[in-house]
């Protein structure tokens, strides 16, 4: 009787080194795609800013200025509108590299400076909301899947359908009215109570900066102001996450390996956390990435209601005044953030699913 040595197939024989090389290839591929999309995005905003029917001069300067030929000529020369389109695009990219997104005619400041202030404020809500929504959504989804067809499942399905159907801007107004105006539980609008000084800027997120500076009172105040917008955005995305988690987990529950895990006598808890959740991780993570996108959309609709000085309020004011360059700036920044999130999600696949690493 000969005890044979292991016979890993060709893939296995390459061993750890091959695995890492495959992972590197996978990451490189994702990066190339992301860079391609980034260029695509700049092309989109460029086209929208420059090619759309309607006078970009009028859009940028306002109708009064557009009636003055001298102003128009100066503007066209300044922004190179008299050059060929490819040349204009190259010039546009050149400006983007120097973070020159033009000047908002509404605030009379560079759009990039406005955005630099707004982005951390928005990220503070967005991160909070996505974490809450993911935890609640996956829990609900799993609960629903395990009770498939029963009352719990039906009720959670109703809850998530309502969640998906809520107009966010409306939820925000109702929550603000109820929790601030009626009940007085939530503090008013803004990021801090007037009189509380902002913490020294490190990340621009007040809660984080306050903790870094050890200003406990500021942290509590900032968190209190954060609560309501986060709640509204959580409501906005939790329905989506519940439904997708339910579908993904149901699919995994049907898998042989879950039955095999039960046949091993593992307790339900272990089967769920070790086998089911791991199996559903890739689709769920994809949806969390998608949900982050819809969450960024949501901030545009709700921030102005809470007087939250983030990207959303900025976009709201800019779009209601047709401040085109400012709107484009928001579009580009949000697109960029979303791109990064999806890139992170893609890269995470490589670590969650070993099969990705060998290029399957």
């Amino acid at each position: 009787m000969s005890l044979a040595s292991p016979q890993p197939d060709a893939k296995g024989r390459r061993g750890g080194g091959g695995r890492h090389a495959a992972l590197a290839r996978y990451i490189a591929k994702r990066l190339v795609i992301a860079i391609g999309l980034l260029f695509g995005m700049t092309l989109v905003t460029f086209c929208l800013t420059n090619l759309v029917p309607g006078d970009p001069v009028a859009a940028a300067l306002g109708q009064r200025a557009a009636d003055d030929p001298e102003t128009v000529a100066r503007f066209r020369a300044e922004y190179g509108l008299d050059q060929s389109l490819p040349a204009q695009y190259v010039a546009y990219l050149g400006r983007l590299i120097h973070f020159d997104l033009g000047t908002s005619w509404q605030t009379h400041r560079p759009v990039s400076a406005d955005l630099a202030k707004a982005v951390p404020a928005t990220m503070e809500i967005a991160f909070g909301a996505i974490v809450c929504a993911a935890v609640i959504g996956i829990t609900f989804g799993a609960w629903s899947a395990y009770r498939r067809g029963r009352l719990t499942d039906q009720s959670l399905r109703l809850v998530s359908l309502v969640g998906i159907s809520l107009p966010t801007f409306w939820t925000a107004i109702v929550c603000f009215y109820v929790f601030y105006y009626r009940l007085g539980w939530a503090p008013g609008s803004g990021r801090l109570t007037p009189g509380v000084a902002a913490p020294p800027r490190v990340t621009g997120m007040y809660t984080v900066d306050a903790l870094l500076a050890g200003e406990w009172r500021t942290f509590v105040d900032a968190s209190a102001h954060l609560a309501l917008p986060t709640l509204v955005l959580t409501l906005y995305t939790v329905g989506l996450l519940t439904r997708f988690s339910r579908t993904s987990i149901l699919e995994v529950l049907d898998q042989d390996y879950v039955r095999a895990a039960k046949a091993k006598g593992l307790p339900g808890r272990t089967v769920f956390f070790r086998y089911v959740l791991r199996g559903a991780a890739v689709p769920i993570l994809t949806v969390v990435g998608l949900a982050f996108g819809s969450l960024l959309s949501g901030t545009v609709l709700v921030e102005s209601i809470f007087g939250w000085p983030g990207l959303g309020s900025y976009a709201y004011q800019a779009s209601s005044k047709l401040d085109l360059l400012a709107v484009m700036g928001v579009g580009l920044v949000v697109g960029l953030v979303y791109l990064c999130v999806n890139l992170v999600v893609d890269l995470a696949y490589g670590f969650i699913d070993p099969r990705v690493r060998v290029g399957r």
Partner: protein
Amino acid sequence: MTRVETQDRRQQAPRRSLTRRLWRAAPPGLRQPLGLVAALVAAAWLVICLIGPVIAPHDPLAQELPRFTPPGEIAFLGTDELGRDLLSRILAGARVTIGLSLLLVCLSMLIGSVLGLLAGFFGRWVDETIMRFTDLVLAFPTVILAMVTAAALGASLFNAVLAALVVSWPPYARVVRSIVLGLRGNDFVFSGRLLGFSAARSIRVDILPNTLGPTLVLASLDIGTAALLLSGLSFLGLGAKPPTPEWGSMVSAAVSHFDKWWLGVFPGLAILTVVMSFNFIGDALRDALDPGVERR
């Protein structure tokens, strides 16, 4: 896992009446009380779309009542900042929001299907171009891209629909493309081509009918999304212009008067009920047909 100790009792097959059989033929989602309610609500809103202005107690544009009247005897749902009757404006607004949402869904279904068909059928660079374009659109969060487009086009309802169209066709293109790709390898399509049928015939006879079910399910789920997107754009001031009774812009009036709760609550409830009822119906349809549209 229940382990019930019972004897094998074979039940008699119950006799079924015609109504019972019809009931069983309906999508399971609609067989529950909630599904029925959703169907009724959706039907009611569609009726209001048709006859809304006729049954409205006031002219939705007339500024003839006291401003900021709370809901009550003078105006059932109160009046707005210009003394217009809120109920009348909501009834008249059904046409705008629901009508345009339906239009938007039809247009995105059409455009998305055509592009998906072309991509799936012709493959190669056609496919590559269209799908990269789809990826690009999907690389932006929808509301953001719609907002940017609407802002560039200028604020009007028509432009809002156009902007919404820009972001809402990709799912259709993807679904149709994947179906066409699946069918293209199928024997019956292949044999049709072998028999010398033209591409047009092959598309019309063999492929189009098969894409219809899944796209319709997608569309029914999309009506709610479309309504949310359009009212959202109007809320941002990128859609309906002031006198038009549009629900999203009506809610935005409440931002500066949030103490007058009725201004925002009622138009918002209108959006919510419309979106919810259509989502419920779409959900029931999807369960019934299950074409796997949920997977990206």
